[in-house]
């Protein structure tokens, strides 16, 4: 969105530190990066940051409004909402990162292979991608949830991560394939083939380095989508389950019964989702402008 003027771009390339260079070229992206880092800090060090145990039930202070003791108030079980929001950041980030990473990586592999080998393999893969693309991501995720059920590892549902990764795969595959097609037409690929290198070596050593930019752009862009999708699925009761703190889950169940008496129950988790998605969206946009301004998602 923000068009980098030549002077800015030059200053950016002169600076050694890539984080500083990114901050100078993309101020909005830098602001969102700060928000993301703050979220990660809260998520990683939740035990130290959160004032209460997110699972501690306290019937003495049920549905208490925001106060000095409970900044964001408490829920119907007297659990501290601020602590649950902080622990919820951990859930959202873990699921957001891993599912976007799995979906984008698998998509990039499929897209690159499809472009490199071409021919019948390419058309079969593309028809399959077409089929997957004709569904809204949440519908696809719900079907995968229906298929896989739940498998808990360390309190996180791995099948949920997979369900969120599946709808990301075809989108990344489509975009990476397009980029890979233009890389494949480069003379150095012909040269590598003429030199008799194996397919694997050509893909890994010659094509992959030139596909990193679209891969990183897609990866960051889909973290926001993944967090939103996790929140939606948890809200529907088909994602993260109680008692694990998750933002979407905090909006469902008795939150909707008591939201008149205790509006803070729905206010803060919703703000947390919005801010997180907002920050990752801005950051994704900034990464795109920085790495490849012409790239279209």
């Amino acid at each position, binding site marked *: 969105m923000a068009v980098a003027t030549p002077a800015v771009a030059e200053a950016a390339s002169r600076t050694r530190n890539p984080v500083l260079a990114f901050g100078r070229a993309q101020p909005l992206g830098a602001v969102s990066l700060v928000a993301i880092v703050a979220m990660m800090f809260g998520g990683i060090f939740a035990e130290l940051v959160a004032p209460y145990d997110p699972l501690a039930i306290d019937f003495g202070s049920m549905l208490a409004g925001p106060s000095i003791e409970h900044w964001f108030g408490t829920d119907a079980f007297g659990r501290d909402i601020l602590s649950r929001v902080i622990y919820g950041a951990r859930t959202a980030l873990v699921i957001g990162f891993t599912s976007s990473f799995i979906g984008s990586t698998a998509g990039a592999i499929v897209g690159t292979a499809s472009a490199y080998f071409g021919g019948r393999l390419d058309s079969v893969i593309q028809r399959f991608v077409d*089929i997957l693309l004709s569904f809204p991501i949440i*519908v696809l995720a719900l079907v995968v949830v*229906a298929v896989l059920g739940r498998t808990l590892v360390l309190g996180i549902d791995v099948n949920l991560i997979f369900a969120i990764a599946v709808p990301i795969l075809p989108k990344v595959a489509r975009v990476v394939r397009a980029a890979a097609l233009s890389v494949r037409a480069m003379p150095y690929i012909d040269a590598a083939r003429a030199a008799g290198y194996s397919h694997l070596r050509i893909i890994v050593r010659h094509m992959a380095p030139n596909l990193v930019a679209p891969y990183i752009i897609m990866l960051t862009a889909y973290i926001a989508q993944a967090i939103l999708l996790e929140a939606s699925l948890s809200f529907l009761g*088909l994602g993260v389950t109680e008692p694990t703190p998750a933002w979407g889950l905090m909006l469902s169940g008795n939150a*909707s019964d008591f939201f008149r008496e205790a509006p803070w129950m729905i206010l803060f988790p*919703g703000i947390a989702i919005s801010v997180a998605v*907002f920050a990752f*969206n801005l950051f994704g946009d900034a990464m795109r402008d920085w790495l490849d301004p012409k790239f279209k998602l």
Partner: protein
Amino acid sequence: MLRYAIHRLLLMIPTLIGVAIVVFFMLRVVPGDVVEVKLRGDGGNVSEETLKLERQRLGLDKPLIAQFGDWMIGLATLDLGKSMWTDRPVIEEIGIRLELSLQVAVMATIIAVLIAIPMGTLAALLRDSWIDYVVRLVTIGGLAVPSFWLGMLLMLSLLTLFNWLPPITFTPLYVDPVANLTQLIWPALAVGYRYSAVVARMVRSSLLEVLNEDYIRTARAKGVFENIVVSRHALRNALLPAITVIGLEFAFLIGGLVVTEQVFNLNGIGKLFVQSVSRNDFTLIQGMVMMIALFYMLVNLTVDMLYAAFDPRIRYR
């Protein structure tokens, strides 16, 4: 043109068959079925014998290939089978809920178009002014705020400001338009915000692109009034990509409805889908997936046809 449309319609058949195959086998790869959820879901102590009988009745005991054959034959005769949970025909289950969801979708589209096109146009014309910044902020917000949370906030404000909540029972438009609209406007707004954000961003960026074209400079140089330059020369071209987005988002509205109907307790397609998933109701999931895919393809085709109608350079053969 007509030949092209027929060709495209015929091309849908193999894709739909592909969808049917994929969804059928996906659902049956992993153990667990509707019978277990239905009879043992509440921790009830039901004998294996009963489960077996129920599976037999639903045809779940047949070999996979036989079940698949039934599914394919059913599709060929346009019979989606019966819901494994309620025993009512899938078509009927979908049919009674379609009106509500379709109406919310159409209303959301109208809201989105009415808001997005002026907003995007204004932002592009007044680029980098404060109006542009506000529009950009509001639209990025639209992509970030979950529609179900927006719905809850809407309900909360209705409750605190007017002490009123939209009714839960659905009144069709032709029975009582006022009751119908006051009920459905809120979910339509909740879904429409994101929708309008997506469209407004598209209108803004494509109008900015068009405004840089040579023919716009030519028109201005000729001394054409600025509002005619914008409305006749720029907008007509800039709206083409917007139409695509409107169409695609319309086809995907079912995704937004899945969560929003839950918030407003509306018994529509989205809620039915969530129910069928949590109940492992295979036939109903299959039927809905086929319907969504078909709907998406038809919308896609319509968008392509509209393209040709709006842009005389595009001719399909």
